[in-house]
Protein backbone atom coordinates (compact mmCIF):
# COMPACT_ATOMS: atom_id res chain seq x y z
CA UNK A 1 0.00 0.00 0.00
CA UNK A 2 2.26 2.75 -1.27
CA UNK A 3 0.54 5.94 -2.28
CA UNK A 4 2.57 8.59 -4.08
CA UNK A 5 1.81 12.06 -2.71
CA UNK A 6 4.19 14.13 -4.76
CA UNK A 7 7.63 14.17 -6.35
CA UNK A 8 10.45 16.62 -5.71
CA UNK A 9 13.32 16.96 -8.14
CA UNK A 10 16.37 18.31 -6.32
CA UNK A 11 18.80 19.72 -8.87
CA UNK A 12 22.44 18.85 -8.36
CA UNK A 13 23.97 21.52 -6.14
CA UNK A 14 20.66 22.37 -4.45
CA UNK A 15 19.07 21.62 -1.08
CA UNK A 16 15.59 20.82 0.15
CA UNK A 17 13.80 20.49 3.46
CA UNK A 18 10.33 19.50 4.53
CA UNK A 19 8.31 18.51 7.53
CA UNK A 20 7.04 15.00 6.96
CA UNK A 21 4.62 13.00 9.06
CA UNK A 22 4.86 9.65 10.75
CA UNK A 23 3.66 7.14 8.15
CA UNK A 24 5.06 9.06 5.23
CA UNK A 25 8.04 7.82 3.28
CA UNK A 26 10.68 9.21 1.03
CA UNK A 27 11.74 7.14 -1.96
CA UNK A 28 15.09 8.68 -2.86
CA UNK A 29 16.37 8.04 -6.36
CA UNK A 30 19.82 8.62 -7.78
CA UNK A 31 19.13 8.50 -11.54
CA UNK A 32 22.73 8.81 -12.74
CA UNK A 33 23.93 6.36 -10.09
CA UNK A 34 26.89 8.40 -8.89
CA UNK A 35 25.02 11.02 -6.88
CA UNK A 36 25.21 11.82 -3.20
CA UNK A 37 22.53 13.14 -0.88
CA UNK A 38 23.47 14.54 2.52
CA UNK A 39 20.70 13.81 5.03
CA UNK A 40 19.81 15.21 8.45
CA UNK A 41 16.71 14.53 10.58
CA UNK A 42 15.04 16.35 13.46
CA UNK A 43 11.89 15.69 15.47
CA UNK A 44 9.51 18.18 13.83
CA UNK A 45 7.55 18.70 17.05
CA UNK A 46 10.59 19.11 19.30
CA UNK A 47 13.75 19.84 17.32
CA UNK A 48 15.85 19.53 20.49
CA UNK A 49 15.69 15.89 19.44
CA UNK A 50 17.68 15.07 16.33
CA UNK A 51 19.42 12.29 14.46
CA UNK A 52 22.18 10.81 16.59
CA UNK A 53 24.59 8.99 14.31
CA UNK A 54 26.76 7.40 17.06
CA UNK A 55 23.71 6.04 18.91
CA UNK A 56 22.32 4.67 15.65
CA UNK A 57 25.61 2.99 14.78
CA UNK A 58 26.47 1.43 18.11
CA UNK A 59 23.01 0.02 18.81
CA UNK A 60 23.05 -1.76 15.43
CA UNK A 61 26.82 -2.48 15.54
CA UNK A 62 27.29 -0.85 12.15
CA UNK A 63 29.60 1.80 10.75
CA UNK A 64 27.39 2.58 7.72
CA UNK A 65 23.67 2.42 7.01
CA UNK A 66 22.02 -0.27 4.89
CA UNK A 67 18.44 -1.58 4.88
CA UNK A 68 16.94 -2.87 7.08
CA UNK A 69 18.07 -0.38 9.71
CA UNK A 70 16.90 2.55 11.81
CA UNK A 71 18.07 6.14 12.02
CA UNK A 72 17.74 6.92 15.72
CA UNK A 73 17.43 10.15 17.66
CA UNK A 74 19.31 11.12 20.81
CA UNK A 75 16.16 10.05 22.69
CA UNK A 76 16.42 6.42 21.61
CA UNK A 77 13.57 6.67 19.12
CA UNK A 78 13.61 5.59 15.48
CA UNK A 79 13.12 8.82 13.53
CA UNK A 80 13.16 6.82 10.30
CA UNK A 81 13.73 3.31 9.03
CA UNK A 82 15.61 2.46 5.88
CA UNK A 83 13.19 -0.06 4.39
CA UNK A 84 14.39 -0.37 0.79
CA UNK A 85 17.87 0.07 -0.53
CA UNK A 86 19.54 -0.92 -3.80
CA UNK A 87 22.82 0.67 -2.73
CA UNK A 88 23.65 -1.19 0.48
CA UNK A 89 26.11 1.29 1.93
CA UNK A 90 25.33 4.83 3.05
CA UNK A 91 28.23 6.65 4.65
CA UNK A 92 28.04 7.72 8.31
CA UNK A 93 31.55 9.14 8.63
CA UNK A 94 32.38 11.75 5.98
CA UNK A 95 30.01 14.45 7.19
CA UNK A 96 29.35 17.85 5.68
CA UNK A 97 31.54 19.54 3.14
CA UNK A 98 31.89 23.27 3.72
CA UNK A 99 32.72 26.37 1.72
CA UNK A 100 36.49 26.04 2.16
CA UNK A 101 36.45 22.43 1.01
CA UNK A 102 34.29 23.24 -2.03
CA UNK A 103 36.51 26.18 -2.96
CA UNK A 104 39.69 24.11 -2.71
CA UNK A 105 38.23 21.30 -4.79
CA UNK A 106 36.12 23.09 -7.36
CA UNK A 107 37.57 26.60 -7.30
CA UNK A 108 35.99 29.85 -6.23
CA UNK A 109 32.93 30.87 -8.25
CA UNK A 110 30.81 33.99 -8.18
CA UNK A 111 27.11 34.29 -8.58
CA UNK A 112 27.72 37.01 -11.19
CA UNK A 113 29.47 34.50 -13.45
CA UNK A 114 27.84 31.19 -12.56
CA UNK A 115 24.34 32.15 -11.39
CA UNK A 116 22.53 29.04 -10.22
CA UNK A 117 25.44 26.83 -11.24
CA UNK A 118 27.59 28.46 -8.59
CA UNK A 119 29.51 25.94 -6.48
CA UNK A 120 27.61 25.21 -3.26
CA UNK A 121 28.32 23.14 -0.18
CA UNK A 122 26.33 21.00 2.23
CA UNK A 123 27.12 22.91 5.43
CA UNK A 124 25.83 26.19 4.02
CA UNK A 125 22.79 24.35 2.66
CA UNK A 126 22.03 22.95 6.10
CA UNK A 127 22.42 26.33 7.78
CA UNK A 128 19.96 27.87 5.31
CA UNK A 129 17.43 25.03 5.45
CA UNK A 130 17.59 24.92 9.27
CA UNK A 131 17.18 28.70 9.31
CA UNK A 132 13.93 28.30 7.37
CA UNK A 133 12.61 26.36 10.33
CA UNK A 134 13.93 28.66 13.03
CA UNK A 135 16.92 26.44 13.79
CA UNK A 136 20.61 27.17 13.48
CA UNK A 137 24.20 26.08 13.79
CA UNK A 138 23.81 24.72 17.32
CA UNK A 139 21.07 22.39 16.06
CA UNK A 140 23.28 20.92 13.36
CA UNK A 141 24.52 17.44 14.26
CA UNK A 142 26.20 14.63 12.41
CA UNK A 143 24.75 13.69 9.01
CA UNK A 144 24.50 10.73 6.64
CA UNK A 145 25.75 10.74 3.04
CA UNK A 146 23.28 8.59 1.14
CA UNK A 147 24.66 6.64 -1.85
CA UNK A 148 28.31 7.08 -0.87
CA UNK A 149 30.61 4.37 0.34
CA UNK A 150 33.64 5.04 2.52
CA UNK A 151 35.37 1.86 3.59
CA UNK A 152 37.54 1.56 6.69
CA UNK A 153 40.81 -0.40 6.68
CA UNK A 154 42.05 -2.52 9.57
CA UNK A 155 44.36 0.37 10.48
CA UNK A 156 41.37 2.72 10.57
CA UNK A 157 42.20 4.39 7.25
CA UNK A 158 39.24 5.77 5.30
CA UNK A 159 38.94 5.07 1.59
CA UNK A 160 36.63 6.58 -1.04
CA UNK A 161 35.16 3.39 -2.45
CA UNK A 162 32.40 4.25 -4.93
CA UNK A 163 29.88 1.72 -6.21
CA UNK A 164 28.15 3.70 -8.96
CA UNK A 165 25.06 2.13 -10.53
CA UNK A 166 22.41 4.06 -12.47
CA UNK A 167 18.95 4.08 -10.92
CA UNK A 168 19.96 3.45 -7.33
CA UNK A 169 17.29 4.10 -4.74
CA UNK A 170 16.70 4.04 -1.01
CA UNK A 171 13.41 4.44 0.87
CA UNK A 172 13.02 6.00 4.29
CA UNK A 173 9.89 5.33 6.32
CA UNK A 174 9.27 7.99 8.95
CA UNK A 175 8.43 6.62 12.37
CA UNK A 176 7.89 10.11 13.83
CA UNK A 177 6.96 13.55 12.55
CA UNK A 178 10.29 14.76 11.21
CA UNK A 179 12.04 17.70 9.68
CA UNK A 180 14.12 16.33 6.81
CA UNK A 181 17.01 18.39 5.43
CA UNK A 182 18.96 17.23 2.38
CA UNK A 183 21.69 18.60 0.16
CA UNK A 184 22.41 17.20 -3.32
CA UNK A 185 26.10 17.98 -3.23
CA UNK A 186 29.10 15.69 -3.75
CA UNK A 187 30.44 13.66 -0.87
CA UNK A 188 33.25 15.60 0.81
CA UNK A 189 35.71 12.76 0.14
CA UNK A 190 34.79 12.45 -3.54
CA UNK A 191 38.14 13.19 -5.22
CA UNK A 192 36.53 14.62 -8.37
CA UNK A 193 37.50 18.21 -9.10
CA UNK A 194 34.85 19.00 -11.72
CA UNK A 195 31.69 20.62 -10.35
CA UNK A 196 29.08 18.22 -11.66
CA UNK A 197 26.60 17.63 -8.82
CA UNK A 198 23.88 15.10 -9.59
CA UNK A 199 20.14 15.52 -9.51
CA UNK A 200 18.31 13.51 -6.86
CA UNK A 201 14.59 12.73 -7.20
CA UNK A 202 12.45 12.08 -4.13
CA UNK A 203 8.94 10.69 -4.05
CA UNK A 204 6.93 11.50 -0.94
CA UNK A 205 4.74 8.46 -0.26
CA UNK A 206 2.33 7.11 2.28
CA UNK A 207 3.68 3.79 3.54
CA UNK A 208 2.10 0.92 5.48
CA UNK A 209 2.90 0.77 9.22
CA UNK A 210 5.56 -1.60 10.54
CA UNK A 211 3.71 -4.67 11.72
CA UNK A 212 4.97 -7.48 13.91
CA UNK A 213 6.72 -9.05 10.90
CA UNK A 214 8.41 -5.85 9.80
CA UNK A 215 11.99 -6.57 8.63
CA UNK A 216 13.36 -3.50 10.40
CA UNK A 217 11.61 -4.37 13.68
CA UNK A 218 13.01 -7.87 13.49
CA UNK A 219 16.48 -7.00 12.25
CA UNK A 220 17.74 -6.90 15.85
CA UNK A 221 16.16 -6.49 19.31
CA UNK A 222 17.63 -2.98 19.48
CA UNK A 223 15.59 -1.85 16.47
CA UNK A 224 12.47 -3.42 17.95
CA UNK A 225 12.98 -1.28 21.05
CA UNK A 226 13.76 1.89 19.05
CA UNK A 227 10.49 1.43 17.11
CA UNK A 228 8.62 0.79 20.35
CA UNK A 229 9.93 4.03 21.84
CA UNK A 230 8.69 5.91 18.74
CA UNK A 231 5.30 4.19 18.95
CA UNK A 232 4.91 5.34 22.56
CA UNK A 233 4.83 8.94 21.26
CA UNK A 234 2.11 8.12 18.72
CA UNK A 235 -0.10 5.47 20.32
CA UNK A 236 -2.16 3.85 17.60
CA UNK A 237 -1.46 6.68 15.16
CA UNK A 238 -0.61 5.91 11.54
CA UNK A 239 -2.25 7.82 8.67
Amino acid at each position, binding site marked *: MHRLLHTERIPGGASWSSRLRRGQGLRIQDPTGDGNLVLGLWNANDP*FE*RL*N*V*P*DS*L*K*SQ*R*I*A*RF*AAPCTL*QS*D*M*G*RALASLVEDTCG*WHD*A*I*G*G*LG*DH*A*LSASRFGETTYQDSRNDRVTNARDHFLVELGRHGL*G*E*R*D*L*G*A*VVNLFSRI*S*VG*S*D*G*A*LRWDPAAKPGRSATLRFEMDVLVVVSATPH*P*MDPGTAWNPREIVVDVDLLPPPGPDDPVRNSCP*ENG*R*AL*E*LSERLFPGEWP
Partner: protein
Amino acid sequence: MNAIVESSLDPKRAERTVVQAGDHWMRELKAGQTLRIVDLEGNQAVDTFFLDAHDPAERYCAQTTLREQGNIYLTTGSRILSTRGREMLAIVADTCGRHDTLGGACAAESNQVRYGLEKRHMHNCRDSFLLAMARSGRNLSKKDIGPNINFFMNVPVTPEGFLDFQDGISAPGKYVEMRATRDVVVLVSNCPQLNNPCNGWNPTPVEMMVWDPWRPSGARHPPVR
Protein backbone atom coordinates in the same frame (compact mmCIF):
# COMPACT_ATOMS: atom_id res chain seq x y z
CA MET B 1 47.41 4.93 13.04
CA ASN B 2 49.02 3.94 16.28
CA ALA B 3 51.62 6.51 17.18
CA ILE B 4 52.92 5.74 20.67
CA VAL B 5 54.69 8.88 21.83
CA GLU B 6 55.59 9.63 25.42
CA SER B 7 55.42 13.08 26.90
CA SER B 8 58.33 15.01 28.37
CA LEU B 9 56.10 17.08 30.67
CA ASP B 10 56.64 16.67 34.39
CA PRO B 11 53.49 15.66 36.31
CA LYS B 12 54.91 17.38 39.39
CA ARG B 13 54.43 20.69 37.58
CA ALA B 14 50.83 20.03 36.55
CA GLU B 15 47.54 21.01 38.09
CA ARG B 16 46.12 17.58 38.89
CA THR B 17 42.54 16.39 39.49
CA VAL B 18 41.28 12.85 39.95
CA VAL B 19 37.86 12.28 38.38
CA GLN B 20 36.12 9.39 40.07
CA ALA B 21 34.26 6.72 38.12
CA GLY B 22 30.90 8.04 36.95
CA ASP B 23 31.78 11.70 37.69
CA HIS B 24 32.06 14.61 35.28
CA TRP B 25 34.72 17.28 34.83
CA MET B 26 34.52 20.53 32.90
CA ARG B 27 37.25 23.09 32.54
CA GLU B 28 38.40 25.80 30.19
CA LEU B 29 41.76 25.23 28.55
CA LYS B 30 43.48 28.37 27.33
CA ALA B 31 45.33 28.24 24.02
CA GLY B 32 48.73 26.73 24.72
CA GLN B 33 47.70 24.76 27.79
CA THR B 34 48.19 21.00 27.69
CA LEU B 35 45.77 18.42 29.08
CA ARG B 36 46.78 14.86 29.89
CA ILE B 37 44.14 12.23 30.68
CA VAL B 38 45.53 9.27 32.59
CA ASP B 39 43.72 5.92 32.68
CA LEU B 40 44.75 5.19 36.27
CA GLU B 41 43.56 1.60 36.54
CA GLY B 42 43.20 0.65 32.87
CA ASN B 43 40.31 -0.10 30.45
CA GLN B 44 38.34 3.00 31.41
CA ALA B 45 36.39 4.89 28.74
CA VAL B 46 36.67 8.68 29.08
CA ASP B 47 33.91 10.38 27.10
CA THR B 48 35.23 13.76 26.05
CA PHE B 49 33.79 16.70 24.14
CA PHE B 50 35.15 20.13 23.27
CA LEU B 51 33.42 23.48 22.73
CA ASP B 52 34.93 26.79 21.74
CA ALA B 53 35.26 28.78 24.96
CA HIS B 54 33.89 31.98 23.43
CA ASP B 55 31.26 30.68 21.00
CA PRO B 56 29.82 27.25 21.84
CA ALA B 57 28.10 27.10 18.45
CA GLU B 58 31.56 26.01 17.30
CA ARG B 59 32.38 22.63 18.79
CA TYR B 60 34.22 19.39 18.18
CA CYS B 61 33.17 17.73 14.93
CA ALA B 62 33.91 14.03 14.73
CA GLN B 63 33.01 13.76 11.05
CA THR B 64 35.28 16.66 10.01
CA THR B 65 38.12 15.41 12.21
CA LEU B 66 37.99 11.88 10.79
CA ARG B 67 37.54 12.96 7.19
CA GLU B 68 40.41 15.44 7.24
CA GLN B 69 42.86 12.97 8.79
CA GLY B 70 41.53 10.10 6.65
CA ASN B 71 41.35 7.74 9.61
CA ILE B 72 38.83 6.82 12.31
CA TYR B 73 41.35 6.55 15.16
CA LEU B 74 42.88 9.39 17.09
CA THR B 75 46.47 9.25 18.25
CA THR B 76 49.60 11.40 18.41
CA GLY B 77 49.50 13.91 15.57
CA SER B 78 45.71 13.96 15.27
CA ARG B 79 44.22 17.43 14.96
CA ILE B 80 40.91 17.79 16.76
CA LEU B 81 38.80 19.92 14.41
CA SER B 82 35.67 21.97 14.96
CA THR B 83 32.35 22.14 13.15
CA ARG B 84 33.80 25.20 11.36
CA GLY B 85 36.83 23.19 10.25
CA ARG B 86 39.32 24.85 12.60
CA GLU B 87 41.84 23.11 14.84
CA MET B 88 40.79 23.16 18.51
CA LEU B 89 43.49 20.93 19.96
CA ALA B 90 46.25 18.64 18.75
CA ILE B 91 47.18 15.31 20.33
CA VAL B 92 50.85 15.59 21.28
CA ALA B 93 51.45 12.34 23.18
CA ASP B 94 49.66 9.01 23.48
CA THR B 95 50.76 5.82 25.19
CA CYS B 96 47.51 3.95 24.42
CA GLY B 97 47.52 4.37 20.64
CA ARG B 98 43.85 4.04 19.80
CA HIS B 99 40.73 5.96 20.82
CA ASP B 100 37.14 5.53 19.63
CA THR B 101 35.50 8.28 17.60
CA LEU B 102 32.35 6.54 16.33
CA GLY B 103 30.43 5.21 19.34
CA GLY B 104 29.62 8.48 21.10
CA ALA B 105 28.41 8.75 24.66
CA CYS B 106 26.03 6.41 26.41
CA ALA B 107 22.67 7.92 27.38
CA ALA B 108 19.65 6.77 29.35
CA GLU B 109 17.73 6.37 26.10
CA SER B 110 20.48 4.65 24.11
CA ASN B 111 20.89 2.26 27.03
CA GLN B 112 17.16 1.49 26.71
CA VAL B 113 17.59 0.69 23.02
CA ARG B 114 20.73 -1.32 23.51
CA TYR B 115 20.05 -3.22 26.72
CA GLY B 116 16.34 -3.04 27.59
CA LEU B 117 13.61 -0.49 28.15
CA GLU B 118 13.99 -0.92 31.93
CA LYS B 119 17.58 0.41 31.83
CA ARG B 120 16.61 4.07 31.75
CA HIS B 121 17.58 4.66 35.39
CA MET B 122 21.19 3.57 34.99
CA HIS B 123 23.95 6.16 35.23
CA ASN B 124 25.24 7.29 31.86
CA CYS B 125 27.57 9.79 30.21
CA ARG B 126 24.91 12.02 28.64
CA ASP B 127 23.37 12.69 32.06
CA SER B 128 26.84 13.60 33.33
CA PHE B 129 27.31 15.96 30.38
CA LEU B 130 23.92 17.59 31.04
CA LEU B 131 24.68 18.09 34.73
CA ALA B 132 28.13 19.52 34.02
CA MET B 133 26.64 21.94 31.48
CA ALA B 134 23.82 22.96 33.82
CA ARG B 135 26.30 23.66 36.62
CA SER B 136 28.65 25.61 34.38
CA GLY B 137 26.51 28.73 34.03
CA ARG B 138 27.42 28.77 30.34
CA ASN B 139 23.90 28.50 28.95
CA LEU B 140 24.64 25.15 27.32
CA SER B 141 22.04 22.50 26.59
CA LYS B 142 21.61 19.14 24.92
CA LYS B 143 21.71 20.71 21.47
CA ASP B 144 25.34 21.68 22.12
CA ILE B 145 26.43 18.06 22.48
CA GLY B 146 27.67 16.41 19.31
CA PRO B 147 29.38 13.06 18.75
CA ASN B 148 32.24 12.85 21.26
CA ILE B 149 35.56 11.08 21.65
CA ASN B 150 35.88 7.98 23.83
CA PHE B 151 39.47 8.03 24.96
CA PHE B 152 40.96 4.58 25.65
CA MET B 153 38.07 2.71 23.96
CA ASN B 154 38.74 0.26 21.15
CA VAL B 155 36.01 0.01 18.49
CA PRO B 156 37.36 -1.39 15.19
CA VAL B 157 35.33 -1.41 11.96
CA THR B 158 35.19 -4.59 9.88
CA PRO B 159 35.67 -4.55 6.06
CA GLU B 160 31.90 -5.14 5.71
CA GLY B 161 31.19 -1.98 7.70
CA PHE B 162 30.26 -3.47 11.06
CA LEU B 163 31.38 -2.15 14.43
CA ASP B 164 33.30 -4.51 16.60
CA PHE B 165 33.32 -3.56 20.30
CA GLN B 166 36.55 -5.06 21.54
CA ASP B 167 38.27 -5.22 24.90
CA GLY B 168 40.25 -2.10 25.54
CA ILE B 169 43.92 -1.97 24.66
CA SER B 170 44.51 0.48 27.47
CA ALA B 171 46.20 -0.44 30.76
CA PRO B 172 46.96 1.19 34.10
CA GLY B 173 48.86 4.43 33.65
CA LYS B 174 48.28 4.81 29.90
CA TYR B 175 47.60 8.39 28.90
CA VAL B 176 46.74 10.72 26.05
CA GLU B 177 47.89 14.32 25.97
CA MET B 178 46.59 17.23 23.91
CA ARG B 179 47.49 20.87 23.56
CA ALA B 180 44.81 23.50 23.04
CA THR B 181 45.23 25.50 19.85
CA ARG B 182 42.44 27.88 20.85
CA ASP B 183 40.57 28.56 24.09
CA VAL B 184 38.30 25.56 24.54
CA VAL B 185 35.97 24.11 27.14
CA VAL B 186 36.64 20.45 27.89
CA LEU B 187 33.66 18.36 28.94
CA VAL B 188 34.44 14.92 30.36
CA SER B 189 32.28 12.09 31.63
CA ASN B 190 34.25 9.32 33.27
CA CYS B 191 31.98 6.63 31.86
CA PRO B 192 29.70 4.80 34.33
CA GLN B 193 28.54 2.15 31.83
CA LEU B 194 27.89 -1.24 33.49
CA ASN B 195 26.12 -2.99 30.60
CA ASN B 196 29.13 -3.66 28.38
CA PRO B 197 32.87 -4.20 28.73
CA CYS B 198 33.90 -0.67 27.68
CA ASN B 199 35.11 -0.14 31.28
CA GLY B 200 36.03 -3.77 31.87
CA TRP B 201 32.71 -4.07 33.81
CA ASN B 202 34.39 -2.01 36.52
CA PRO B 203 34.43 1.80 36.11
CA THR B 204 37.53 3.31 37.71
CA PRO B 205 39.04 6.80 38.29
CA VAL B 206 41.05 8.80 35.79
CA GLU B 207 43.35 11.73 36.37
CA MET B 208 43.43 15.07 34.60
CA MET B 209 46.69 17.00 34.43
CA VAL B 210 46.94 20.52 33.04
CA TRP B 211 50.17 22.35 32.24
CA ASP B 212 50.56 26.09 31.63
CA PRO B 213 53.20 26.98 29.08
CA TRP B 214 53.57 30.44 30.61
CA ARG B 215 54.04 29.17 34.16
CA PRO B 216 57.17 27.05 34.01
CA SER B 217 56.99 26.61 37.77
CA GLY B 218 53.66 24.86 37.27
CA ALA B 219 52.22 26.84 40.16
CA ARG B 220 48.64 25.91 40.93
CA HIS B 221 45.91 28.38 40.21
CA PRO B 222 42.14 28.17 40.36
CA PRO B 223 40.46 26.77 37.26
CA VAL B 224 39.51 29.41 34.74
CA ARG B 225 35.81 29.65 34.05
